[in-house]
């Protein structure tokens, strides 16, 4: 590195921000440090940059403070997110149960479980009913309602109860989490690794799969509801409690699913989000091509050609160069997401059997999309299919 020359300063100035926050490699940091010792301008620039950053940071705080009144209630937001992820968990458990318990057995089981819950509800010893609260609430309202189990296929009337159960389950879950050591990060940090492992072993043992099996067995025998051991007798382990409550509800949901009761649960749990998600995910795929798609495609293609034509090496397959230029081209249009750019170019290449375009698109796929990019699963699959087509196009015509 030269010191004092303009280009040398330019290089250092470009690195000052990362130097400031300790992001440079050891070698770069050493170079900047050496340079700063002899260059007053750069030292001043660094001080100015730090002051600027501090002021801007304060500005962001002030910006948030100005709009503080519009902030959501964070406890509520968290609760809603947790409830929705709990529903997802239940849905994934459902898959396991569906594979392992025959339909008829599940139907019988659910009816039995419901009957037992009714009994428990009537007897209701204090601690037992506390442990069973979510189950009772998710028990199709038998406690206050009809004394017979609900007919198979009854869905509407159970929805509200299920939602309520979900909420109360979430509360329990949140309360448990609040009591847990996870909200005291220093404990986790201080805790020796072994302690960590022990705790995990205690909580998860004898393994997630085994636990699921046991839970399903519990459903078959009328749910843990009927099992006096279900009440925590010795230590009040918040995690275990949360786990059990969670599982009870999930198994109930799973059993219901098997016999067609409460089939709407997932939708009930997320009424408007489903709509939003569908739109968000499907829009790019389902939307009809804009009227000028051909133009856009051509445009993209010509830009590519132009980029390719400027460098003879490209025609020989200098992959990096094409990819770089493709990337540069994407930057030109801030609206175009890498994915849609890729799709446009890939489709064009496939339609026209253009190996040069295919090569460029495929390189872009490998460099920018395949691994790190955050894509919806459906997008990823679609893009992967396109990439496969590109690869086979190139294999046919090398």
């Amino acid at each position, binding site marked *: 590195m030269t010191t004092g020359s303009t280009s040398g300063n330019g290089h250092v100035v*470009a690195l000052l*921000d*990362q130097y400031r*926050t300790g*992001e440079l490699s050891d070698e770069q940091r050493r170079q900047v440090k050496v340079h700063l010792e002899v260059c007053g301008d750069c030292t001043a620039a660094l*001080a*100015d940059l*730090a*002051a*600027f*950053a501090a*002021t801007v*940071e*304060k*500005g962001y*705080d*002030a*910006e*948030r*403070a*100005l*709009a*503080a*009144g*519009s*902030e*959501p209630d*964070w406890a509520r*937001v*968290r609760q*809603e*997110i*947790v409830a*929705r*992820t*709990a529903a*997802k968990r239940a849905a994934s458990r459902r898959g396991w149960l569906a594979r392992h318990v025959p339909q008829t057995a599940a139907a019988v089981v659910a009816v039995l479980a419901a009957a037992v819950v009714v009994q428990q509800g009537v007897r209701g010893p204090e601690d037992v009913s506390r442990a069973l609260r979510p189950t009772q609430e998710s028990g199709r309202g038998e406690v206050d309602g009809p004394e017979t189990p609900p007919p198979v296929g009854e869905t509407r009337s159970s929805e509200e109860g299920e939602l309520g159960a979900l909420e109360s389950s979430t509360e329990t879950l*949140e309360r448990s*989490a609040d009591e*847990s050591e*996870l*909200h005291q990060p220093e404990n*986790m*940090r201080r805790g020796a690794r072994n302690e960590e492992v022990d705790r995990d072993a205690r909580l*998860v043992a004898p393994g*997630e799969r085994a636990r699921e099996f046991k839970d399903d067995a519990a459903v078959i025998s009328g749910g843990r509801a009927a099992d006096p051991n279900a009440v925590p007798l010795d230590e009040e382990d918040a*995690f275990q409690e949360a*786990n059990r409550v969670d599982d009870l509800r999930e198994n109930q949901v799973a059993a219901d699913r098997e016999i067609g009761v409460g089939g709407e649960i997932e939708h009930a749990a997320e009424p408007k*989000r489903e709509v*939003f998600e569908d739109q*968000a995910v499907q829009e790019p795929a389902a939307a009809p091509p804009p009227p000028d798609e051909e133009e856009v495609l051509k445009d993209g293609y010509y830009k590519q050609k132009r980029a390719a034509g400027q460098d003879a090496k490209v025609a020989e397959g200098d992959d990096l160069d094409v990819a770089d230029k493709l*990337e540069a081209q994407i*930057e030109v249009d*801030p*609206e175009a997401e*890498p994915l849609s750019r890729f799709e446009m170019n890939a489709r064009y290449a496939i339609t026209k059997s253009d190996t040069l375009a295919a090569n460029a698109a495929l390189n872009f796929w490998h460099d920018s999309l395949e691994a*790190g*990019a*955050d*894509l919806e699963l459906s997008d990823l699959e679609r893009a992967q299919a396109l990439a496969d087509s590109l690869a086979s196009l190139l294999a046919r015509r090398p």
Partner: protein
Amino acid sequence: MNAESAGTKQQEMTSDEWAQEAALIERIVAGEGRHYSVLVERYQRRLYWSCVRLLGDADEAEDVVQEAFVKAYERLADYDRTYRFHTWIYSIARNRCLNVLRKRKVWGLLSFQDSEGAPIVAADDSADRGVENQELGLALTECRNTLPSEQRECFDLRHAEAFTYREIAVALGIPEGTVMSRLGRAREKMRICLESKGVVWGA
């Protein structure tokens, strides 16, 4: 503002905290999904403000935050732990913001407005410093709004969220060199704009 506000303060993550978060995520992936609320609590507010900056709308930002956390939960096993969770959840939320913007067909118009469209009134703060900060906040908003959207996003991530250059590059899917040039240009414009509004920073 209360204890929650501490959550938005930019903080460098120590390697200890990083390891702790990685361990937490491993437990969630291994089936202890209830711990997810810890991550939600840690990042929801920061993510919300990032979305507000992208969308300029509080309600939409809240929806996106919820969507992003649910999506991230579903795909937590895919999360690449070489990057901070914050980087990953941001890129998920960002994709959703872009979907919203695409629907709106406006990408670049930003202002801090509530859902009724009325300007947000200043938070109650009687101290002189509060008034000063208020002016600083307004100046920052105005100046940020003069930046092209891609420069503004880089600038926000760098200075509001303390992302590294590498993290910005990953979250936006662009080369690090591009991050550097966008930040350079953004800073140049911001300096001039803020100075013209009487904002000073000692040095």
